[in-house]
């Protein structure tokens, strides 16, 4: 698979690797995803192109809940993502054990990013081949963070990652404003995804997650279908 080769190439092809170039490599091979922070929630959307129609799409997911109020999606290597999802879930529960309060989104991002940073400095390991988008809701506010293989993390109002992230971001820059409601945000997110989508976009080959005061939820294929119908 594309991503695999790229990871192993970085040490050879880059003469003086610095953190910025490191991150760029993973974007080259990843799938598109993007996310959007609205006034009353956050939406994560990603394409989920399977290599064969024989794949059982519902058995593996890209959009994953971490706690009741935080969810995430990735761009890059699926197996590395799985490890980080488990780690993030454990970190969130450890926080709850001590403080009996749900972990603030920023705190979870800091802890996950620290894990990713460790793997750039420890011996015998390689950096995680994923960039994460973490969406959460706490203290009556939506939050959206990106976490890179370097361990750097950023807060966003709206962002795109993956193959066509340049076009995605440009599209978002035009369409984003602070007062957007969650429903409009979902609509816009799906439209942005469609811009760079090859082939027909159906509820089986994209995944959408939303986060609002009710918590984080991955939309069912039926719900996604309704939104797709609106943009047809």
């Amino acid at each position, binding site marked *: 698979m594309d991503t695999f080769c790229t990871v192993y190439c970085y040490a050879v092809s880059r003469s003086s690797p610095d953190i910025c170039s490191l991150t760029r490599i993973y974007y080259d091979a990843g799938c598109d995803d993007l996310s959007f922070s609205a006034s009353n929630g956050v939406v994560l959307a990603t394409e989920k192109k399977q290599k064969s129609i024989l794949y059982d799409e519902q058995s593996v997911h890209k959009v994953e809940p971490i706690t009741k109020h935080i969810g995430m999606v990735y761009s890059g290597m699926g197996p590395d993502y799985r490890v980080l999802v488990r780690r993030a879930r454990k970190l969130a529960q450890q926080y709850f*054990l*001590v*403080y*009996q*309060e749900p972990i*603030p989104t*920023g*705190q979870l991002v*800091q802890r996950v990013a620290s894990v990713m940073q460790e793997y750039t400095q420890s011996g015998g390991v390689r950096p995680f081949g994923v960039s994460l988008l973490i969406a959460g809701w706490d203290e009556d506010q939506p939050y959206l963070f990106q976490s890179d293989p370097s361990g750097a993390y950023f807060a966003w109002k709206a962002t795109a990652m993956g193959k066509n992230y340049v076009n995605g971001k440009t599209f978002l820059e035009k369409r984003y404003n602070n007062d957007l409601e969650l429903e409009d945000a979902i609509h816009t997110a799906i439209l942005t995804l469609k811009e760079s989508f090859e082939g027909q976009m159906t509820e089986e080959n994209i995944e959408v997650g939303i986060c609002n005061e009710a918590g984080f939820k991955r939309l069912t294929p039926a719900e996604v279908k309704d939104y797709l119908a609106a943009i047809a």
Partner: protein
Amino acid sequence: MLSSNAFVDPGKMKDYHYTGPVEHRFSPYSFNGGTVLAVAGEDFAIVASDTRLSEGYSIHSRDSPKCYKLTDTTVIGCSGFHGDCLTLTKIIDARLKMYKHSNNKTMTSGAIAAMLSTILYGRRFFPYYVYNIIGGLDEHGKGAVYSFDPVGSYQRDTYKAGGSASAMLQPLLDNQIGFKNMEGVQHVPLTQDKAVQLVKDVFISAAERDVYTGDALRVCIITKEGISEQTVPLRKD
């Protein structure tokens, strides 16, 4: 108890009991006395403690209050072994600061209570000899009291007494605040002034009978306006 050493003379009755020389083991703990009490109201909380610090039949200090301010809305009362009380409050203060730097906000009373439970249980096999009671306001502005045992078992209460005179105070509070064992009495919600007066009265009673309680009483009243303190003299004997 008779000991089996050179003093045993078979057949002869013993006149006196003498255990012989006994090596005292070093004890890492000592008991410094003191009583703490916390009451939660509708929109206030009170944490009160006496100010006597003792050891055995001696008094170390007549002015050593056991209430420690943690945040603008939380006060903790610690009694038991004074050395552990001091260290524990320092550790809690440090953890509070770390949380503030990390989370950009102050810890809520509930979070402090949950965290204290894990700190205490972390020393399950060499406990902090401290009886803790936290009093403060929860996120909704209502009074909250959390009471602990030395290894971290805790629960939220309306009122709780801890320390040397706790067995004397707790039944009295059960009756006056919980209206227990009283029939045909109207359950009037506790006002702040009545609560403060009750706290003073119960401590005066405790000082009468408990040798470790006395000298002075420090009352901390926590409301959304802040924390106000009052000091009331108690029996010095």
